[in-house]
Structure formats: structure tokens, C-alpha cells
């Protein structure tokens, strides 16, 4: 098991006028593991990911991925795959058309499009307009786009939203397979039961960091449910970081 952090957040803070969305977040995400970024709605998960990717500037602190800020990472688009709820498809595109746009931007061979369509179970839906796809298919398409460049790190924001039970099982298996290939997967979610079956490590945030460590340590090797520990952490008054 690698202990080199793939992602580091140091004192990361984001304020929107008088509202502090993320407050002094310091945590390392280990390479080659699936890490769940957990928190309630509005806990600062997506804002944290936006700052990590340079889409939003932090008020204080800094974030690095593979040792550099995203904007300074050589070939960042090829090394970090991203799927976020807030990122919609190109207006008017089909499934294949959407992937071809990003394949062109990345300078990849067109055949890669067919590969990721196969990997994400979108075969047969290539010519369907994205606007006519189900939520589950859109989630698969978002993951397909993230996988286009065969990245070392995957940052996925709420990838299980809108998935049916089959889709959730597919996502779980896919994330485990990706991690088994040595990739780092950071997945934000508030679906605790699902996360419990998928992740190796857990980061719990509720504006501030509430926990960072292994799932096994948090649940005492499975003696406690993640849900039980989660509510204990997020409902507790802000306190010092608990490191596993």
C-alpha cells in the first residue's frame, strides 16, 4: 500500500462574502486507494473539489494533486480525470459526439472513444442525444469522459446520484477495479451505505475536517456502521482533527 499522498489539501479555506464554505481543511489522500469525501449537502465537498482542480480560488491555503497545483501540473488533463455533477454535456451532443469533443481536446485517437463507451456500458447508446439519456446513463457518460485519457487520479463528485441499484453495483465494481489498477480515486458522496462498501479511506467534512483515516479504523473494523460514526462526527461541535 502506497503512503505517498496523491492529493494534499493544506489549510484550504473558502469564503463567499460572510459565509465560510470550507474552513482550514488539511488532509492527504493516499495514492492507489479509493477515498470517500463525505459530508452533508452544503458541507463543502464540491467546493473543496473545485479548489483542488483550480476551478475556484481558495481564500486561504492550497491544494496539490500529484505534487503540484492542478494548473501547474504537466499534462494535468491527461493525468487527472474529473466527473462532477455541475459539469454538463456540450449542448446538443450525442453520447459519441460528447466524447469526441473531449477526445479532440485531449489529442487522443478516436478509437479511445469506443473503448470508454465499452468500459462504461454505454454500448448501443452511442448515437443517443445526451439530453434524452437517463440520469444513470449520464453518470456513466461523465465517468467515460473522465476515463478518456486513462488518468492516474480520478476525482468524482457524487457519481452515484440518480443511479439505480444495477448502476450503483456497476459503479462500485468499476471504482474498485480502477483502484486495483493503481489509480487514486477520490469520490465525494452522501450515500453512506454505498460508500461503506466501496472506499478504503474516509474524509468527513462539515465545513471543517471531522475525520481523515481508514474506513476500518473509523468503524472499528466493522463493529460500527459508517452511518452511526458519520452522524457522531458531523453533529459533534467542531473539534480537533481526528487522524487515524
Amino acid at each position: 500500500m502506497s503512503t505517498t499522498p496523491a492529493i494534499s489539501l493544506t489549510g484550504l479555506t473558502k469564503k463567499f462574502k460572510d459565509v465560510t464554505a470550507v474552513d482550514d481543511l488539511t488532509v492527504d489522500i493516499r495514492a492507489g486507494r479509493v477515498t470517500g469525501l463525505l459530508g452533508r449537502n452544503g458541507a463543502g465537498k464540491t467546493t473543496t473539489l473545485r479548489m483542488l482542480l483550480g476551478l475556484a480560488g481558495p481564500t486561504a491555503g492550497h491544494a496539490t494533486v500529484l505534487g503540484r497545483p492542478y494548473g501547474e501540473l504537466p499534462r494535468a488533463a491527461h493525468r487527472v480525470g474529473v466527473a462532477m455533477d455541475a459539469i454538463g454535456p456540450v449542448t446538443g451532443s450525442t453520447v459519441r459526439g460528447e466524447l469526441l469533443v473531449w477526445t479532440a481536446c485531449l489529442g487522443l485517437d478516436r478509437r479511445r472513444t469506443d473503448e470508454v463507451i465499452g468500459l462504461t456500458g454505454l454500448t448501443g447508446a452511442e448515437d443517443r442525444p445526451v439530453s434524452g439519456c437517463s440520469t444513470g446513463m449520464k453518470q456513466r457518460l461523465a465517468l467515460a469522459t473522465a476515463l478518456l485519457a486513462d488518468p492516474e487520479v480520478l476525482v468524482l463528485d457524487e457519481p452515484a446520484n440518480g443511479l439505480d441499484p444495477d448502476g450503483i453495483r456497476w459503479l462500485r465494481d468499476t471504482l474498485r477495479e480502477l483502484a486495483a489498477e493503481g489509480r487514486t480515486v477520490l469520490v465525494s458522496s452522501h450515500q453512506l451505505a454505498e460508500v461503506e462498501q466501496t472506499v478504503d479511506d474516509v474524509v468527513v467534512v462539515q465545513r471543517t475536517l471531522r475525520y481523515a483515516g481508514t474506513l476500518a479504523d473509523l468503524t472499528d473494523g466493522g463493529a460500527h456502521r459508517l452511518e452511526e460514526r458519520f452522524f457522531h462526527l458531523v453533529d459533534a461541535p467542531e473539534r480537533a482533527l481526528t487522524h487515524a
Partner: protein
Amino acid sequence: MRNLVHGELRKAVTGRTWWILMLAGTFLCLLSTFGFASEGHKAVAAGGSAADVTNDIARAWMMMFLFASLSGAILVTREYGTGTVARSVLLAGSRGRLLAAKTAVATAAGAAFGLLAAGLGALACAFAGAPYGDSAAFTRETWLILAGVFACSVLAAPWGALLGWIVRNQVSAVALLITLTLVVDPGVQALAPEAAQYLLTIAMSSVYRDVKPDLLPVPWAFAAIAGWLTAAWFAARRLLTTRDIV
């Protein structure tokens, strides 16, 4: 950069926006064409110049530049509406590269609008008078007007794109462009023609060789347009690199 421009080109032709705008622009230009042909017939019958009528018909196709500017604005702002801009930024390497690529693609789209306007404008000049039994009278001036119509569309599209980066909202950007082109600039021209000649769309009037008084000479008009585009570029770049994306 070539990959990025390729990807942006793919985005630009995805969906129906581009051909709807071209169709709408063509429709409005044709309406003006029929008006000029009808009025021109009366003018020629009264002893007017057929060459003037042909030039008026050619000039009617300048309206395509409004649609070229809208295409540039929509190219940018629709990405803010869907959040696609976040992926565009992530894959571009830097926000500056994305700005350059989008501006280049918007300019190429403007050239397509310009070719359409100049081509159909030439055909309109040749055939619009036929139902009235009038013949076209192409002169050097006609071709200069059509060249100006092309140039205005080419320059209007990046203007729209840069305003799109500044405004970031599709409805606001479209409303701003229409208001500037159809209300603000002509209004300023009516009130203060000396000052208005430096406004972007009024400077474009010089380029497509409008016959109004108080217009800049063509080289100065190009300089004024370049000044507006440069200012918009720096404003767009500054705002794009400092504001949060989505």
C-alpha cells in the same frame, strides 16, 4: 493548441445553434433585400441609378454581423449555462489557452457567417430586381460593400465571444449585443454623431460603406474596431483568469 481548437470547432458545430442563427440572419437580410428591390424599382423608374439600388441590396446583408456576434456569444455562454465550461478549463491547460482557442473558433464561425452573407448578398444583387424587370448593376463599389459585409461578420463574432466571457450569461449577453447594436449605438449616433463614429457597430458602418455622413474613413474604422476588440480581450482575459469557474 491545435487539439484544443479542433475540440472547440467540434463544440461549435454541435447542436442546432449555428444553423438556426444563419437561417435567421438570412431571413432578415432577405426581408431587407426585398424592401430595397421594391423601393429601388420605383427609384429607377423615377430616373434613379440602378447601381445605387444594387449597392443598397448588397449593404442589406450587413445585418448578418449581428448574428455572427450572437453566435460568438452563445459559443461561450452556453457553456456557463450547462457547466461545460468547467471541463473546457480543466482540459485546456490554462484559461488563457481556452480564451485564445474559443476566440479563434468564434472568428472562424464569423468567417462562415461572412461568406454566407457575401455570397447570398451577391446572388441577391443579381436576382432581387428580376421580378420587377430590373437588372443588377454591379460596380467596384458593390464588391467593396460585399467585402465589407464579410469583414464585419468576421470581426463581430470574436466581439460577441469576448462579451460572452465578460457577461457569462447567455440571455444577458444576447440582450446586451442586440441592445448595443440596435439601440445604444444608433441612439448615440443620432445624439452625438462625432463621438458615435468611434463606436464598434458604427465603425462597422464605415467598413460596409454605409452612405451616412459622419463616418470614419475605412482605415480609421478598422483601427477603432481593433481598439474595441483589444479592450474586450483584456477585460475578458482578466475576468476569466480571476473569477471562479462554475
